[in-house]
């Protein structure tokens, strides 16, 4: 019975990571009196909320065999735009709507360029990442955007049922995307397309059209994260979201998705996000010397993928083909 449960659980999540996360959580709760408090739980959740929201979109992109480096830049642009729209008295609803539209269209542009130019998503989104962040600098000339209406602060600072609104939003989004990926025909195509785009095309799936969808979702979620950041700090600054894409990708990969495409799930990503959020907090709680933080993140990423790959090999006895894991795979 237990083994059956374990097997069932392992379909939905990354058991090893779950064990480490629970272990870390327990150790921290016992060792540090300030760790297991309601307030700290909130700080843990809010301390990684931008990345968490963006990780949902990144999961879909990575399962589909792509990658989106432009999300950090979309985040900063959207936080600035929503600020400017609000200051132009467009009203909260319209400002958010416009910002999300513009964010989504950046994702659309990414997908169109990947499709049309037959270029690797890495290099295309690297281009948009640079250009969009540059654009954010051009608009603000380095000055922060401030002076938002009070009503706007709800999205980043408000509470729903005693839970911070961004966290509620994240939970809803995670459930929605989980259901979409697991239980709808259209979205579950992503696994097939990601593991073998050629075959998917032969089966009559419109891979190009599907790519529009994945990158629009990714960019729109980045836009959402930007709006929340702007609301959280009641200001927007051209420095927001630097290297956020790297943290997001780390969370998705530690969760157990594979950059070769076809592998990954919302559940695993959520776990990866929770793990990194706890680690970030644990390092401060435990007083890990500040300069060791980067070393720790780097080793966690490498160790987690090496272990993952080692067990996959042990389990199946099959090594990946070169084509499947080098970048040229797609």
């Amino acid at each position, binding site marked *: 019975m237990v083994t059956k449960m374990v097997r069932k659980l392992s379909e939905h999540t990354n058991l090893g990571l779950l064990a480490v996360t629970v272990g870390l959580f327990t150790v921290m709760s016992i060792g540090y009196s300030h760790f297991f408090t309601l307030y700290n739980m909130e700080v843990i959740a809010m301390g990684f909320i931008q990345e968490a929201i963006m990780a949902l979109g990144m999961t879909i992109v990575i399962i589909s065999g792509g990658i989106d480096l432009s999300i950090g830049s979309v985040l900063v642009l959207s936080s600035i735009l929503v600020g400017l729209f609000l200051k132009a008295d467009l009203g909260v609803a319209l400002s958010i709507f416009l910002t999300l539209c513009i964010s989504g269209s950046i994702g659309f542009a990414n997908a169109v360029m990947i499709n049309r130019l037959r270029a690797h998503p890495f290099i295309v989104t690297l281009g948009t990442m640079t250009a969009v962040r540059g654009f954010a600098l051009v608009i603000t000339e380095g000055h922060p955007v401030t002076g938002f209406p009070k009503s706007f602060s709800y999205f980043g600072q408000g509470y729903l049922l005693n839970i911070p609104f961004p966290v509620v939003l994240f939970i809803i989004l995670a459930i929605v995307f989980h259901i979409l990926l697991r239980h709808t025909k259209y979205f579950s195509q992503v696994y097939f397309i990601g593991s073998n785009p050629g075959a998917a095309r032969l089966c009559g799936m419109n891979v190009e059209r599907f790519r529009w969808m994945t990158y629009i979702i990714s960019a729109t979620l980045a836009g959402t994260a930007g709006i929340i950041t702007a609301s959280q700090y009641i200001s927007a600054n051209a420095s927001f979201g630097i290297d956020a894409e790297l943290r997001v990708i780390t969370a998705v990969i530690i969760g157990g998705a594979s950059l070769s495409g076809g592998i990954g799930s919302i559940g695993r990503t959520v776990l990866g996000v929770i793990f990194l959020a706890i680690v970030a907090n644990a390092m401060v709680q*435990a007083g890990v010397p500040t300069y060791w933080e980067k070393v720790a993140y780097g080793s966690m990423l490498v160790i987690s993928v090496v272990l993952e790959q080692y067990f996959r090999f042990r389990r199946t006895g099959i090594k990946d083909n070169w084509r499947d894991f080098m970048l040229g795979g797609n």
Partner: protein
Amino acid sequence: MKGRAKSKLFSLVVSLVFTFMTLFSAASVYAEQTYGMVVFLKGSEFFNWSYGGMQDAAKLLGADIKTELRGPATWDASQEARAIEQLIAKGVDGIIVTAGDATTLNPAIDKAVAKGIPVITFDSDAPDSKRLSFAGTNNYEAGKVAGKAMVEWLNGEGEVGVSTFPGPNHLVERIRGFKDGLEGSNVKVVAECNDEGKVAAAEAAITAMLQAHPEIDAVFAAHGNPGPGAVAAVKNVGKEGEIEIMGFDFGMPVVEAIDKGQIRGTVGQNPYLMGYISMMMAWGANQETRVDGPHAPPSVNTGVRILTKDDIGVYKSPPAFVSGK
């Protein structure tokens, strides 16, 4: 079966993580008070001076006072705010912070104050927050002092190129102050170049600026990094000794260049004193006193002066970095 092998290995990992954390934290469990410093750019020599000052003050105040340094490794205003929030959750007894972007940090600072944690800003202020006090040099004022010194160097007439990079508020303020300091003389800023905030990129950027404006008589390196790049750039255009260079802060490369006479002077703030005084004020706010009310001044000016070859000697040995106590 695979599950068993997996969990065996991961219990190993968990215990490793545990050892790792206990190793670093053995002291923290028993420490009675912890004070955190938050900077917007970790790994800057300038803030190491401040942290050194903070640690020296903490040592003076008692053996049971622990300090720690936090902040993002690349500048992101929202990441700095997060660092403050993590320290609040840890329950530190005081936070000393340099505000990379004041508006973004205000909510986090106010949250700390609401939790009863005294917050002192240093170097870059967050005047609209509920912070207890500010220790440092107003960046605008520092820029102004630099501007006035520049007028003196150039005998009231000449053209200046500025090396900076887009983004941080304190640089915007510094350069505004610098330009105001030139007011009333015939010295003016004719060009600004983007050194990307990097030591390595400064040389090419400043050389190009000196090319475009051969009339430039002096370079103002508006932050710590471009100073050595300006030295190399002046050499590139063959105008050593003709173009005056004013650096900012006293990072070792700038100190060495001043010692060799390649940079005429640098705008010396007092980061050590900033950290020292901030620590004193944060600690003081936690002490019982015989009167109620605020015991810290709204701000403390730690002064600024132009350091030249004659008085740079002290700065040749920055305080050794020790991560905590």
